[in-house]
């Protein structure tokens, strides 16, 4: 077998000298041999053979024979002839090898158990080769390791190890954090409906927000302390307050309507143009405004406006009697804001406190609310 990558053409045409002279400008030719007046043969590089063939066809030359030599041609021939077969063989080998292993783990039926923990346990204790995994043994080991498991079945489906787990029904106390019931608001206890736990307060007690109402334990007849989950409904009278102050005279600041504007055009934070005026106001407030002059990122011109508004102070005088109802309504609104979760409004009242020039309106709404615990009948 010739190792050089060559292609030998055997052609038939008229005026072969002219043809070869043209062809040699395209690719170098070798071993040119005139067979007879109409036929000749020549060799060229195997990698140029396509170009030569195209050239000969374009020049209406009859190609009698084409022979390829060399390693590159042999490799290509083997690949094209046996490529599909080779791919099938490689695929089968790969499939057979990887089919021996478990690649995926599936855990079903867990609620309290951590799936990740179960999978890690199986991975650590058993091989990933399917032939080495005894499903019975996996089931027994899982039952031994995890107390929460009541029933487990293990099967290998394809390349997935499927674990179907049924968990034990354990009492809630097993998972409880035994937290006490604390008061969510200040108030006076009106009703205690205790299901479990030990009450720390009685009806009529006044409690503050954060006080422990029910402790998460019970003491049995033998004096033993037993931790339990706290469950109770505790109702209390809650005093929701809102206040509003009225001043007989106060200074009100208002805009006069005069304003001065400053403008600045910037590009990438650099000032391009600036227009500034003197601000002669003794009292003023400032507003800033940023406007994009262009909508592109290429030249992001921006206009920065600064507006100075002149202010003036006015002394406003009003008598409380004239606006009393308005202030009481305001104080009530504030009190109602604190009654988000109230069940029943028991009573409403307000008080007025007159100081020198100030009147303070206090509005109180007494409600009955559940201030701690949950109740499941």
């Amino acid at each position: 077998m010739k190792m050089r990558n060559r292609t030998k053409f055997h052609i038939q045409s008229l005026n072969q000298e002219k043809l070869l002279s043209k062809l040699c400008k395209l690719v170098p030719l070798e071993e040119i041999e005139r067979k007879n007046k109409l036929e000749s043969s020549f060799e060229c590089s195997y990698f140029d053979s396509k170009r030569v063939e195209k050239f000969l066809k374009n020049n209406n030359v009859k190609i009698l024979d084409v022979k390829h030599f060399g390693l590159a041609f042999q490799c290509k021939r083997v690949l094209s002839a046996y490529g599909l077969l080779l791919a099938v063989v490689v695929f089968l080998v790969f499939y057979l090898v990887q089919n021996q292993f478990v690649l995926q783990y599936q855990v079903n039926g867990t609620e309290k158990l951590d799936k990740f923990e179960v999978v890690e346990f199986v991975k650590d204790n058993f091989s990933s080769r399917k032939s080495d995994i005894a499903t019975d043994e996996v089931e027994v080991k899982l039952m031994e390791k995890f107390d929460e498991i009541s029933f487990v079945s293990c099967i290998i489906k394809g390349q997935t190890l499927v674990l179907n787990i049924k968990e034990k029904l354990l009492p809630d106390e097993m998972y409880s954090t035994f937290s006490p019931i604390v008061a969510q608001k200040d108030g006076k206890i009106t009703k205690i409906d205790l299901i479990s736990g030990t009450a720390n307060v009685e009806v009529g007690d006044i409690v503050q927000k954060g006080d422990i109402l029910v402790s998460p334990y019970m003491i049995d007849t033998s004096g033993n302390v037993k931790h339990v989950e706290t469950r109770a409904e505790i109702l209390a009278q809650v005093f929701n307050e809102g206040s509003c102050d009225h001043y007989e005279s106060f200074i009100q600041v208002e805009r006069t309507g005069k304003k001065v504007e400053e403008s600045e055009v910037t590009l990438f934070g650099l000032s391009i143009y600036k227009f500034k005026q003197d601000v002669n106001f003794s009292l003023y407030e400032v507003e800033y405004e940023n406007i994009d002059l262009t909508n592109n990122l290429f030249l992001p011109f921006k206009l920065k406006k600064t507006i100075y508004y002149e202010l003036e102070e006015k002394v406003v005088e009003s008598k409380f009697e004239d606006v009393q109802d308005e202030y009481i309504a305001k104080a009530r609104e504030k009190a109602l804001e604190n009654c988000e979760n109230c069940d029943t409004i028991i009573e409403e009242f307000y008080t007025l406190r007159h100081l020198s020039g100030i009147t303070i309106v206090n509005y109180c709404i007494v409600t009955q609310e559940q201030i701690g615990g949950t109740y499941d009948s």
Partner: protein
Amino acid sequence: MFNFLEEIKENIRTPLELDSFNLINVAGHLLYVEGHLGLVTLSKELVSFKVKGGVIIVEGQNMILAELSENTLKICGIIKKVEQV
């Protein structure tokens, strides 16, 4: 590197046009040509090709064109006569 053809050209005192083509006959069995302008005749007994200023005719026996590129060619076989017309 020593270039035989360049060396010969430099040693010639009379000014001549020497850059048109080069033709080397090796032991009457190999003819190497630089600067050809295309084949005119090709057979086992006669090969002729154009060069600048004329045509070279090569006569012999069992001659083949061992190489042919854009401006060089190599003739192998028994070379009896090389003539420029």
